């Protein structure tokens, strides 16, 4: 423990080391793993996950959690495409959905900051609400295709920048912008203060309640971006993703990367490392042709180990005991 305590071996470093070891092992043992296209494929496969984790990361650093992200991602995009399919001009449809997404973020924030509902329950409830509302009122089936008239969305999905697929570029941009915001803006520093000690931040005069609303609006908008990128790549969005394990994968990336669930710690570097580890792991397992159930088992085991390490490195101290976890 002394090594861990002294900070030379933080969770982030352990995960990074693990990712490097795994990468080296796959590179040695698996033919074709090191091919440039495969490396690009790894990045692409975790891009949407990574973008979602960027949004989730910001919220978790502020000691919250947003379980409505995947619902917002799928349903906002599906609603937007459905409107476009029905002949609504793309810009108008986008504006309407933008307002809807911001509203979901504000509702989450209001429930958590003012009604003081725990974030887990508030966002779980809005997730169901968003899914139910859009699924029953605005779309008629699970899969909504990108309308042929919106060829710009398709072209966007095919675009490459410096040989990198657009998904990867967008992940990099989202992570970089969030990094800058968290590090160098007042908003970002406040997020850390709130996550570290909510009461103290409040006493200091930080507008904690509006800040909470702001965080959930950001995570909702990031989720929508992830949905648009998914739709651009697949030429459709399938709302079944709400029932998948994607949400847990997002939390996995955040926790495994080393952003402690008790808030106030970590940054975008952790998200990138977490996403890379998951990408390398899944890619290798697919090359090995491991069935999905084993892949899930391995993923779950790694999450458990990460949680245990997290609780050893960031023990529940008196402060957390008083304020509660997320």
């Amino acid at each position: 423990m002394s090594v861990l305590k002294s900070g030379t071996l933080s969770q982030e470093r352990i995960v990074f080391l693990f990712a490097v070891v795994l990468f080296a092992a796959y590179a040695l043992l698996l033919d074709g793993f090191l091919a440039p296209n495969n490396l690009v494929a790894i990045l692409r496969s975790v891009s949407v996950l990574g973008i979602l984790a960027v949004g989730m990361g910001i919220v978790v650093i502020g000691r919250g959690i947003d379980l409505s992200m995947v619902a917002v991602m799928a349903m906002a995009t599906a609603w937007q495409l459905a409107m476009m399919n029905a002949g609504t001009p793309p810009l108008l449809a986008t504006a309407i959905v933008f307002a809807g997404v911001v509203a979901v973020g504000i509702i989450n924030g209001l429930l958590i900051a003012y009604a003081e509902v725990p974030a887990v329950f508030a966002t779980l409830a809005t997730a169901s609400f968003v899914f139910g509302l859009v699924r029953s009122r605005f779309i008629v089936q699970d899969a909504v295709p990108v309308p042929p008239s919106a060829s710009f969305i398709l072209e966007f999905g095919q675009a490459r920048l410096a040989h990198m697929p657009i998904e990867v570029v967008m992940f990099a941009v989202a992570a970089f912008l969030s990094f800058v915001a968290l590090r160098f803006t007042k908003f970002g520093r406040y997020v850390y203060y709130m996550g570290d000690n909510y009461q103290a931040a409040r006493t200091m005069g930080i507008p904690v309640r509006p800040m909470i609303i702001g965080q959930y609006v950001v995570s909702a908008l990031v989720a929508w971006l992830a949905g648009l990128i998914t739709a651009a790549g697949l030429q459709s969005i399938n709302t079944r993703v709400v029932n998948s394990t994607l949400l847990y994968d997002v939390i996995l990336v955040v926790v495994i990367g080393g952003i402690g669930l008790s808030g106030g710690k970590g940054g975008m570097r952790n998200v990138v490392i977490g996403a890379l580890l998951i990408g390398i792991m899944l890619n290798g397992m697919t090359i090995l042709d491991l069935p999905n159930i084993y892949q899930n088992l391995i993923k779950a085991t790694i999450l458990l180990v990460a949680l245990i390490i997290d609780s050893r490195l960031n023990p529940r101290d008196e402060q957390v005991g008083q304020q509660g976890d997320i």
Partner: protein
Amino acid sequence: MTIKTKLARTLAAALCLATLPAFAQETGDPGPAYVQQSLAGKKVVLIPLALGFDLAQGWNHYIGSEVRGFGGVWETRDPNWDTAAGAQAITDLISSADKPAALLVHTPDLTSYSKLFKRAQDAGIFVIQVDNRSNFASDAFVGSNWETLGELEAKAAVAACGDGSSKKIGLIQGDQVNSSSLDQYAGIAKVLKDHPDFELVGAPDSNWDVTTARNVATTLLQQHPEVCAVIDFWDNTAAGTAAAIRDAGLTGKVKLVTTGGGEELDCKALEDGTFHAVVMTDVKGQSRDISALLKFLLQSGLKPGQAKSWIYTLETATTKADLKPGTCWSLKDVQAAEAALAK
């Protein structure tokens, strides 16, 4: 001719005339009354995996119109891909005061609903399994023989590759619990046994998720760019596999074979070359089979659980060359018809 016979004839003619009006009312056809008595007011409930995809909406429309047509009551439950919600719906229906006469169930896996099917039959409800079979043989199964379907896919893939090709095939399976996935695999394996020169280079699962399909297909194509055909077990996930083929710049070189409900999107994908072949389930024909079976069971005097049958839908591998107007059905039309009904 004697007077006696003349008299008899006249009498007979008179009798005929006298009874004529009665004949006009009673044609002697017992059908309509019997049908009315056996079918009218009978409740039939469809419980698909979810209502939000093409097959389920097709059944809802085509079978629903038939049931309403014979004077029955048509209802649906939407578990939205949640096995527990589906089980709850079946349980509620079994114990409801207004019991349905028949359940049409699209089972998620081999075992989850088996005990419930038995309970439904014990409660006097006919159970017809649709599309996916389970381990329990209920009153009937209507759907694909998934093994045959897999054989058709494999044959289409072998034909698409041809002799001069790499003869390497990749699969994007569904999962390892759903009969439609397991049986498809068995069918494909059978055909490949007859073609020992063909090699299966990878068979990852999509877990029925389109993004997962895209990721695993990308990896598969990356490892084996020489693959000549990929078989994806469902047209919904094949959208992801198609994206992977497009990303890899292998459009036209890697032939994508899949299976689906024969909705317009399938035909469009065949038309533009996204799919090379689709083994189509004839939803209209299948719905007609189910409707006929319902009419039979409810009139037959059979008790639920007394007989069992498997009614396999005719499947055909459709390629671009086979496309004709009317090959596919239109979800849009079906939805418009349902919306008009709701008004």
